[in-house]
């Protein structure tokens, strides 16, 4: 969680400093839920994160360098400068590389789980995280229904951060609670306070356990608030101050810190030291990635398929772009 917060903020700083093109999407306020997902998954499971899942990725095992290299477009990162920021992944290792179209990754998780069943592999699960906004997509619906029909070990986690970009829940859906959708798919629903790490660990842990046990798809809805803009370009001026002041507006990191302090499991000094070590770790990764520079367009293969012999020869014309 801490690492994710620091990493996100450093990326945001680099963006503001013009070192990152495109956008930076932060998980501020969503780290507890996200970390709980990453923590409850095991190696060999499948994870399709949403754009604010730095914490979950790290907990699932994504190296800090993968994140930094992808943001900076290093040719040594998993996306080699071809795709950026939150689109990173290592699909073969169970970490999907998202496309931007919301809802599209869930069916791919289904496919991985379906393939494993065909191959006779048992005991693994897949988590697909989406936002409140993504629940309005046809892709979300088709994939949840598909998982239910196939009785796949899918856990769909909805981080209901009250807004999709600027659009509030009231303009996104009209059901009382997103958990109500579970019944319509014939799957089990769960709700959790997304600002409370312990609660998240409990509920996500339970949902994942059930899926692993063969109880079919699970839907977890977490209530929380995005404590930042949609991307780093957005000041989130549209967020209702009442929500900020309410329980969903709590900073999950502070809640977790307080818990640790209250339990006597950490002192303010240890916490401060954590921050420092973490900052240092991120700084090192940034330094490494920055040293690596960007990809070299002359060395790119510019072939979008793996069957190289079937690549079309546009090269002659295209090479002219490089003058």
């Amino acid at each position: 969680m801490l690492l994710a917060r620091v990493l996100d903020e450093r990326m945001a700083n680099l963006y503001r400093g013009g070192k990152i093109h495109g956008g930076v999407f932060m998980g501020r306020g969503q780290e507890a839920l996200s970390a709980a997902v990453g923590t409850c998954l095991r190696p060999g499971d499948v994870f399709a994160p949403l754009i604010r899942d730095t914490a979950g990725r790290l907990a699932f095992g994504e190296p800090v360098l993968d994140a930094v290299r992808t943001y900076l477009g290093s040719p040594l990162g998993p996306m080699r400068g071809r795709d950026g920021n939150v689109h990173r992944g290592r699909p073969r290792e169970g970490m999907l590389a998202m496309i931007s179209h919301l809802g599209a990754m869930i069916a791919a998780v289904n496919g991985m789980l379906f393939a494993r069943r065909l191959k006779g592999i048992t005991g693994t699960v897949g988590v697909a995280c989406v936002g409140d906004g993504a629940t309005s997509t046809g892709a979300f619906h088709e994939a949840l229904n598909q998982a239910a029909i196939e009785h796949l070990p899918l856990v769909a986690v909805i981080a209901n951060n009250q807004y999709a970009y600027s659009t509030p829940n009231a303009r996104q859906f009209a059901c009382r609670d997103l958990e109500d959708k579970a019944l319509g798919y014939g799957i089990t629903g769960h709700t959790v306070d997304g600002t409370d790490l312990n609660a998240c660990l409990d509920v996500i842990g339970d949902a994942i356990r059930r899926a692993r046990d063969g109880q079919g798809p699970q839907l977890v809805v977490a209530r929380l608030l995005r404590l930042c803009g949609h991307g780093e370009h957005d000041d989130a001026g549209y967020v209702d101050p009442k929500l900020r002041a309410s329980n969903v507006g709590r900073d999950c990191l502070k809640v977790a810190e307080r818990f640790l302090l209250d339990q006597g499991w950490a002192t303010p000094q240890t916490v401060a030291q954590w921050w420092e070590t973490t900052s240092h770790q991120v700084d090192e990764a940034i330094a490494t990635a920055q040293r690596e520079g960007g990809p070299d367009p002359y060395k790119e293969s510019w072939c979008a398929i793996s069957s190289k012999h079937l690549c079309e020869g546009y090269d002659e014309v295209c090479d002219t772009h490089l003058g």
Partner: protein
Amino acid sequence: MSLTYLEAIREAQARALKEDPRVFIYGQDVAAFGGAFKATKNLALEFPGRVVDAPISEDAIVGLAVGAAIEGMRPIIEIQFADFSTTGFNQIVNHAATTFWRTSVPLPITIRLPSGGTSGSGPFHSQTLEGLYATYPGLIVLTPATVEDAYSMLLEAVAIDDPVIFCEHKLLYYHLKADSLPTEALPVGKARIARAGRDMSIVTYSAMLHEALAVADELAAEGTEIEVVDLRSVKPLDTDTIMASVARTGRLLCVGESWPWGGVTAEVLARVASEGLDLLDAPPQRLNAKDTPVPYHPNLWAAHRPTARSIATAARRVLRT
């Protein structure tokens, strides 16, 4: 033994299922029912658990194939009609097509699209979308015109480590017959001289091949020798074979069943114009369907798409110039 184009497609799938445990078939009504056109007839029985009925969810159907391919499987997807691939369009062009380039994970998916017009099928059961998919990087687009190609190209499609859009033509399903299944075949990516000639080239593919061959017959009776090139694959497109043919004949008519703006025929003409202008003795021409949805009534349908009759008229015009 005699075999239809449709049976060849079924046999290719049976063989793929038999020879490779990573292959499975997923699509609406493909299991017990054997598919809307019976292209998967009995396969669910022969390969239990590997031929699976899907809900009416093209987006999730293709999405599932993407995930399964990541896990090393080789799914064959049957879309009930090519026209319905538009609801799975995003997963095809943005997910399946980009995964290898973005992540280095090869994505062997075959998407079977029963394509093309048949009498009375109307605007939403007649479309030919090869040009649409060919514009996207990351996809291979095949358009078999013969029973032999339906078989061998489908087998090769399943073996290819990339997403393949397999456009099978419904009009050829039942009436096109071959005596036996081929044991060898041209590889994907190579066009074929379906008929040699020296006076002009008709470059075409899929069902239009047979219209073009009929025209070649007709004009041969008048002493004109038309060379007919069957593209077989529209992406990649075998420019070399096209150029060689145009070099021989100096005249080009490119015929397709799709709408007239862009698509395969525009791509062929553009390549010939930019790379083989000197080879041309007359302006190259295209013949496509009309720029409206595919009409329902047989009268209108017959006028909407190119036919041997309209191809012959166009060919004569090219020959005259």
